[in-house]
């Protein structure tokens, strides 16, 4: 029972600082997906790993208090729907499903490339939330004997 409450004090203190840096790096990777290597998939996995870091260091119960798991579920489903909404907006404005209907802007600017940036953000949220939730559920199943 003691082991389920996370790791030692050193790990917890380091995690308290490092998790925000990992989250920031994930967000950076997502927002620069159309300019440099990375994008929604890589950034989403980094965000999932940041939450997983908290779960491994502090235990499962603390994480479910810190994060609202039901809200993460809603965020995951909503991002899948938002992808479709942007696709359908493409029909009404751009003339085809998932058409790039926002102006492209300058080539190397951060706010450029039309719908690629919002779609990257949506995919990042989707991948991050779903992978974290899977790990959360797998960690919660009591399979080891004696626990």
């Amino acid at each position, binding site marked *: 029972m003691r082991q389920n409450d996370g790791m030692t004090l050193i790990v917890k203190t380091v995690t308290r600082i490092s998790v925000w840096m990992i989250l920031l790096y994930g967000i950076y990777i997502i927002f620069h997906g*159309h300019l440099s290597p990375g994008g*929604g998939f890589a950034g989403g*996995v980094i965000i999932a790993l940041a939450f997983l870091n908290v779960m491994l260091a502090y235990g499962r119960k603390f994480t479910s208090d810190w994060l609202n798991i039901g809200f993460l579920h809603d965020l995951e489903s909503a991002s*899948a729907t938002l992808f479709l909404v942007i696709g359908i907006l493409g029909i009404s404005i751009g003339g085809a499903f998932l058409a790039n209907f926002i102006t492209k802007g300058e080539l190397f600017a951060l706010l450029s*490339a039309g719908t690629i940036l919002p*779609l990257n953000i949506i995919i990042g949220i*989707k991948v991050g939330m779903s992978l974290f939730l899977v790990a959360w559920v797998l960690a919660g199943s009591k399979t*080891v004997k004696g626990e």
Partner: protein
Amino acid sequence: MPVEYWLIFILIVMIIASIAALEMEDVLSSIVAIGVVGLGVSLSFLFLQAPDLAIVQFLFEIFALIILVKAFMGKEYHKEEPSRINKILAGITVITLAAIFIFSVSVFELLPPFGEPLMTTSQYYLDKGAQDTGAANLVSSIILDYRAYDTLGEITVLFTAILGAFTILRIKTKSKKDKTEFSHAAK
């Protein structure tokens, strides 16, 4: 040193590590050996000029390692020794796979040689990608603009896989105590 020699070296290490992963008894050793294979793939992606994939593959490794260790460590169970028929069947499988390998050498001769891809549709993406989408990362412009349907399908598959995992783990199974009763009832 050309890229090809590096790749041959990495691939040989990966083959050895994968055989080790399959043949070792200890679960933790197998998972670590699979990690070696995955990092080899990530390194090869870097040599093949695919930095996007190298990042994603590296993160995949970390995530898969955490999941596998958390799920499979500390589980004791009885393993039956493979009987003689099993060993013979494994030998037959190896011979069949070797035959498949020898016959498929001629298939690989038909493919374009290493280092000279076909570049038919891709040439259009390279030439017009920046102009059509305004993104500097051409891989990003393909997955989210030219072929966004692909990404939509990917999101659907991921969503379904996650729902499946949730559904499977939420079912209450009968414990071992019930199982013995069940086997009595089956007789």
